[in-house]
């Protein structure tokens, strides 16, 4: 191929009720082909019930250099987790 197809990110919902998760990426000429390629590359072992594809260029990613200001302030704020409550035994899945 003289010209590479654009890169697409693939998100698959593995079963109803769960969220779509990032499965990987692939090359395709357009959205329709990306969907078919995703079906063949990522769901041929019965992994999914729904597929999303999005061209990789439309994803805005955070810059690793900014990790300090983005994420470090959250490290010492454990009180943002609801870990200081006594839960009754009857409440499950919290």
């Amino acid at each position, binding site marked *: 191929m003289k010209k590479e197809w654009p890169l697409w990110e693939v998100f698959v919902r593995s079963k109803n009720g769960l969220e779509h998760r990032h499965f990987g990426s692939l090359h395709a000429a357009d959205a*329709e082909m990306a969907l*078919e*390629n995703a079906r063949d590359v990522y769901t041929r072992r019965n992994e999914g019930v729904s597929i999303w594809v999005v061209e990789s260029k439309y994803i805005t990613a955070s810059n690793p250099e900014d990790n300090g200001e983005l994420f470090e302030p959250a490290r010492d704020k454990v009180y943002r987790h609801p870990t200081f409550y006594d839960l009754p035994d009857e409440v499950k899945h919290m």
Partner: protein
Amino acid sequence: MKNQDLYNYVLGIADNSLILGQRLGELCGHGPNLETDIALTNIALDLFGQTRSLYQYAAKLEGDGKTEDDVAMLRLERDYKNVLLVEQPNQHFGHVIARQYLFDVFHYQLMTALLNSKDETLAAIAAKSIKEVSYHKRFSGDWLKRLGDGTQESHEKMQEAIDHFWPYTDELFDMTASDEKMAADGVGVNVSAMKDAYYKEVSELLEEATLEVPENPYFKKGGKEGIHSEHMGYILTELQYMQRTYPNMTW
């Protein structure tokens, strides 16, 4: 054997899928790109899965302790009943797509009709196959449109590929003596009656792909009666090598 006609009929369907699957399998690791390579191999595996059920059924009909491997791997060339279309070489990607699409439209029609078979095994195999075949047709049809309505070069190559395989399409609708018998019994499908619908569907897609529908007065046939093209011997040599060299081997 109790029912030679049914046996022949089952093999007629099974051999098409085996040989086309073998052709597609040759592309494993050689597809035009990673994604298409996997897609073509998936289709080959679908076809092998379908044909395996059919060979198991055929082996049961043959009795005498025969297995699916005996039926699939150990017959002589003249005993294979696949159409000439599916044994034709891959050549370029346009050829792979043209051959696939021209077969898929037929295959889908056949499986749809076979759902109503009075033979429960055949109807069950058709029910399992039809979603796979439906996807095959979508895949090959989409590519046919892309390449036909693509660049000048892809258009020319796609037209050449369609022209090349067109003479093999008419054989799909021929009826052998066993086919006639099985259709009359409500077990098989009267494929000769599907011809108009087939050419209508294919022509509409070709038009959408900006390709010309070939006008070809000469059609090539013989595969259904066991008279194959020169390519068939090479396919069988590769296909049968393991079972013939190491009889009864299993993985």
